[in-house]
């Protein structure tokens, strides 16, 4: 049996007008694109809109794609930008990332960390995790989702977002502190304590 074609081969064929090759790229990446969009936007309808927008842009732009990055980086970049535009449109008055105050130092960090992850991950905790992402300024949200949810490397995130690695690290750290502070507030509420076991 023939071996699977590489992304590069499929891109080249797509650029020559091979519709089947583009369809294969869609099959390969659609669930990843949807998943990234859903993680950034926290809403299934918005994620589907971004999925369609991403592949429409890719379809229109594939001939101009020069292969300076991999196809996966390129498609993630289109997805992240499309999601960012949607976030900016939807977002109520936002905090700019320069004003974003990650120094809202957590008051009383309950020491919830020793509990097993599986025990902490209740439906309520997942809701709190959702809300913590939603509260992030869009530019922080992009970096946090790509790095800590999608588990891409700092340099991959930098390529996708066209940022320096230093800027990725800086935004990531600030985003993590903000998210952690929201979760710390959630875990300090009495009704979340059941997830932490017998702590008093």
């Amino acid at each position: 049996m023939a071996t699977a074609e590489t992304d590069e081969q499929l891109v080249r064929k797509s650029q020559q007008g091979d519709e089947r090759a583009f369809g294969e790229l869609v099959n390969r990446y659609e669930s990843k694109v949807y998943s990234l969009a859903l993680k950034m936007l926290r809403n299934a309808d918005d994620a589907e809109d971004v999925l369609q927008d991403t592949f429409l842009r890719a379809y229109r732009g594939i001939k101009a794609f020069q292969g300076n990055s991999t196809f996966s980086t390129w498609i993630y970049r289109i997805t992240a930008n499309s999601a960012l535009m949607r976030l900016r449109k939807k977002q109520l008055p936002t905090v700019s990332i320069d004003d974003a105050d990650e120094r809202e130092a957590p008051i009383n960090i309950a020491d919830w960390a020793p509990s097993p992850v599986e025990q902490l991950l209740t439906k309520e905790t997942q809701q709190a995790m959702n809300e913590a992402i939603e509260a992030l300024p869009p530019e922080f949200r992009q970096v946090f989702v790509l790095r800590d949810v999608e588990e891409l490397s700092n340099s991959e995130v930098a390529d996708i977002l066209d940022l320096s690695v230093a800027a990725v690290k800086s935004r990531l750290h600030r985003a993590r502190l903000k998210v952690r502070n929201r979760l710390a507030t959630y875990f300090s509420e009495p009704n979340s304590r059941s997830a932490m076991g017998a702590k008093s």
Partner: protein
Amino acid sequence: MMTCKEVLDSLSAFLEEDLKQEVAVEMHKHIGMCSDCRAEFDTLTMTIKLYRHWEEPQMPPSCHDRLVKVLEIEKIRLKRGPSTSGSGA
């Protein structure tokens, strides 16, 4: 000796083992002795773990069907020529 503020600013880099060895050693020492910074470290570590364990819903198959249709329509639109307005971008 590092201050708590310096430790807090370097926590992500520490977690990713992205610090010079001597700074990492200082961080280790500080976190070992300072319960506030240990809580900062533990909760930041747990925050990252939680998101990495978080399972999101899969893409519904109907999304694929609609995407294929949207792309088919775009193909037809492009074949008709670029004069049609409304790229939707």
